[in-house]
């Protein structure tokens, strides 16, 4: 059984979206994947709440190497987030650049939250509204393994 790596990248200020990212990570582990959890950096170094300070300490931002080393990528955003907001702009640009260079071939992607509807060009898998984040993580891990096995 090939080992697959799922990269979960999220943006969060309050801890709410982090919970969805953690759930997606648990689902990916249930799907027997290794996980990489990454949080997009804050745009402004505003004074943080306890939760924000904790997240800044616990997570590192995603890198190109993280994307290239992953078999699947899950993007987790708040439902009100739009892709043009600063935390996402840079990372989505990176994904588009890598796709144009053919470096996302055979990698799967999924997105939940406000950024999901506008990622058609990335050909991401958009889960139906009934699928929870655990199921999404598990599904993507299993699909990534199937792709890798093929």
């Amino acid at each position: 059984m090939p080992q697959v790596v799922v990269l979960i990248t999220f943006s969060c200020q309050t801890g709410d979206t982090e919970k969805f990212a953690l759930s997606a990570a648990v689902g990916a582990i249930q799907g027997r994947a290794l996980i990489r959890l990454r949080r997009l950096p804050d745009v402004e170094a505003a004074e943080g709440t306890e939760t924000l300070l904790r997240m800044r300490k616990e997570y590192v931002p995603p890198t190109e190497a993280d994307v290239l080393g992953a078999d699947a990528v899950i993007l987790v955003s708040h439902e009100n987030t739009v892709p043009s907001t600063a935390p996402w702009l840079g990372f989505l640009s990176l994904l588009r650049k890598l796709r144009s260079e053919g470096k996302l071939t055979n990698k799967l992607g999924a997105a939940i939250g406000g950024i999901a509807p506008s990622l058609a060009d990335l050909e991401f898998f958009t889960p139906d509204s009934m699928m929870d984040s655990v199921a999404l993580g598990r599904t993507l891990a299993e699909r990534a393994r199937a792709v890798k096995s093929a």
Partner: protein
Amino acid sequence: MITLRRSAERGHSNRGWLDSYFTFSFADYYDPRHMGFRALRVINDDRIEPGQGFGPHGHRDMEIITYVLDGHLLHRDSMGERHILGPNEVQTMSAGTGIVHSEFNASGTEQVHSIQIWIEPDKEDVKPSYQQIAFAPEEKQGRLRLLAAPDEGATTIHQNTRLYVTELQPRQSVSHTLPAGRHAWIQVVRGDITVNGQELNEGDAAALTDEGSLSMTGAGEYGGEALIFDLS
């Protein structure tokens, strides 16, 4: 038969914020001669700098036991558990179908010295769980204090393994019977202890097979503390 695993022979990694000694192969340390003992897969001797730690990462199908010698560790996980673990406590996490957790030094000023243990479970896909118990220091002094077992009396693990801790003053002894077919791994975590006549120093370990019994005596000027794994 007793096989010794000396402290200086262990794998070692120092990332600045984390100084670790690996009894068995782990992360970048790989030695096919030291992949574990029976169901025991990992014993990592970690020193974590103030405020530093392991960010959120995942585990699956592993019994993960943490024992703190000095300082305090802050644990958070995807089940919503948030606890601080200190000396004379034990934390056991059954990863089962999958869990994400983080572990950080809870202090901004003092180092944490902890032992992390991984034991392979006897069944996969169990429901993830978290347990933490505290005990009085006297419960391990001059006797064996059960920390983890498949049945009652301590934290519960999904494996036919019993983990004890003992702290022995110089010349103070404890013994433990190993029925036929049972094995033992003794990991000295502090000070000096003699195991069936063999002197072990901090970080040393001994694997016992077909020994029948185990006799440990505090040695050196201050005695020592050891973790004892009774394994099938």
